[in-house]
């Protein structure tokens, strides 16, 4: 136990960020799209979420960012059972999660700057502080010139980068990114992955859902594979009874 990094300390303090036990999910009265999912993600880990189109990656993420309740099973976040949390606390938990939605979900009537600033505004930050911080991050993702552009006037890849900036601006403890590089070229994809790795180094738990095989090859993080609503892959990662495995 010679060199404890900041990350090691965090992991020790927080334990598992997510712990799914026997979770199933369905949309309204539709069929189950996730079946009996159990796994645990330790704080500070980095995972790819893979699987064919329609397998349930985005649905799993919906459960993780508290947009949907499980049909069966239990989900614990930061050690607390999610289903027992009151509304007020759910909001507080959500602020600890940054999400890159597969379809971006930028607000059309806001500029890139305002979109990215939203998480800070919601937590009550002062306007002057926000502005510089947001502008800097936007330049970093290559949108320095487009901070005042509305999403509809941005290219697909530019919108995606705004969505990523919004997800990371508030330094969340968890980052969930759904296909975050589907619309950008290889160079930018690499740059964004480096950004995620930087965040991971300071303790952020990261889950990236992706189909991008080049990315999967170049960044050798742990993989969670989902097929037809069922988790498949090395047993150790998904065995919630055992100690959680790190990436």
């Amino acid at each position, binding site marked *: 136990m010679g060199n404890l990094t900041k990350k090691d300390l965090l992991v020790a303090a927080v334990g598992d960020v997510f712990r799914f036990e026997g979770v199933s999910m369905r949309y309204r009265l539709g069929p189950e799209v996730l079946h009996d999912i159990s796994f645990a993600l330790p704080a500070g880990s980095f995972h790819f979420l893979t699987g064919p189109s329609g397998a349930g990656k985005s649905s799993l993420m919906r459960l993780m*960012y*508290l*947009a*949907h*309740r499980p049909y069966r099973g239990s989900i614990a976040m930061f050690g607390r059972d999610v289903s027992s949390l009151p*509304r*007020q606390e*759910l*909001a*507080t*938990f*959500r*602020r600890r*999660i940054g*999400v890159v939605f597969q379809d971006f*979900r930028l*607000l*059309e*009537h*806001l500029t890139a*700057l*305002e979109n990215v*600033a*939203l*998480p800070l*505004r*919601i*937590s009550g930050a002062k*306007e002057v502080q*926000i*502005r510089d911080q947001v502008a800097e991050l936007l330049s970093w993702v290559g949108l320095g010139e487009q901070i005042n552009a509305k999403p509809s006037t941005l290219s697909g890849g530019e919108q995606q980068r705004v969505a990523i900036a*919004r997800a990371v601006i508030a330094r969340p403890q968890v980052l969930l990114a759904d296909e975050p590089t589907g619309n950008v070229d290889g160079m930018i994809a690499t740059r964004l992955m480096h950004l995620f790795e930087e965040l991971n180094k300071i303790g952020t738990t990261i889950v990236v859902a992706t189909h991008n095989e080049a990315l999967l090859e170049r960044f050798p993080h742990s993989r969670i594979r989902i097929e037809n609503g069922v988790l498949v892959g090395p047993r150790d990662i998904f065995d919630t009874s055992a100690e959680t495995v790190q990436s």
Partner: protein
Amino acid sequence: MKKLSNGLPLGVDPVSRFLTLKVGLLVLLATLSLAVGMVMSSVAESLQRSLSGTLTVQVPAGLEQQSATESIIEILRATPNIRDVREIPDREINEALEPWLGAQAPILDLPLPALVDVAIESGQTVDIQVLTKKLSAVAPGTVVEEHSMWLGRLMDITNTVETVSMSVMLLVLISVVITVVFSTRTWMAVNREAVEVLHLIGAHDSYIAHQFQKHTFWLWSVGAAGGFALGTSFVLLIQFYIGRLSDSFLLDLTLGDIQWAALCLLPATAIIIVIATVGFTVKSVMRSFM
């Protein structure tokens, strides 16, 4: 530097402007109906006070009208339950007839009946038929008119108008609530995306409700102020017009100080109702999100 937006598309779009107009109309209606209702309420009260229990006796014209009238007054004074008896002077009769027969009535020198005002002890009644018989014996053709019956009708009308006005005002306030619930829900459905994103990045329900309340407050304030101004101007105008029409108008159709104060509370009350409704509506919609 322009202020950063708070996250919801709450601009002054055509729909909002239309809503302001509608709000103005509702508040105008409420103001007018409240004013009418309050006037009618005080009219009914003063009618009740000043006119209840009165009779009018008409002594027909004829050679001995004067002496017949005097005898009749005496009989009336002797009748039990009668508090006061007064002969109405010719001048008053002519004035009362003027609107019907024109200014030429006195010139035509119509042989008008003599009129006698009779006040009954409050709470008591007088049998009209018995009285008519008794008086006709002295002066044939004498007619006893039951003012209180006429008054009863007037009271009925006044009460009806009051009830209708107050119901209209209540209905208007209810439709204010309905309008608010409806427009808020529509807006939230149209902007579900934006609302959902704010929710998912951790905005409290009250953050979203508060933004919408601020927006609605301005929208409604403008509309309510306009509608209220228009309504009170109208009330003032009518009061002025009635005032000029006849100083000796039978009924007092003006608003008292307390009534004006009540009227002024109306738009404020409306806005408070609106803000509360918006908050309630937004939060109840938000509860459909996890």
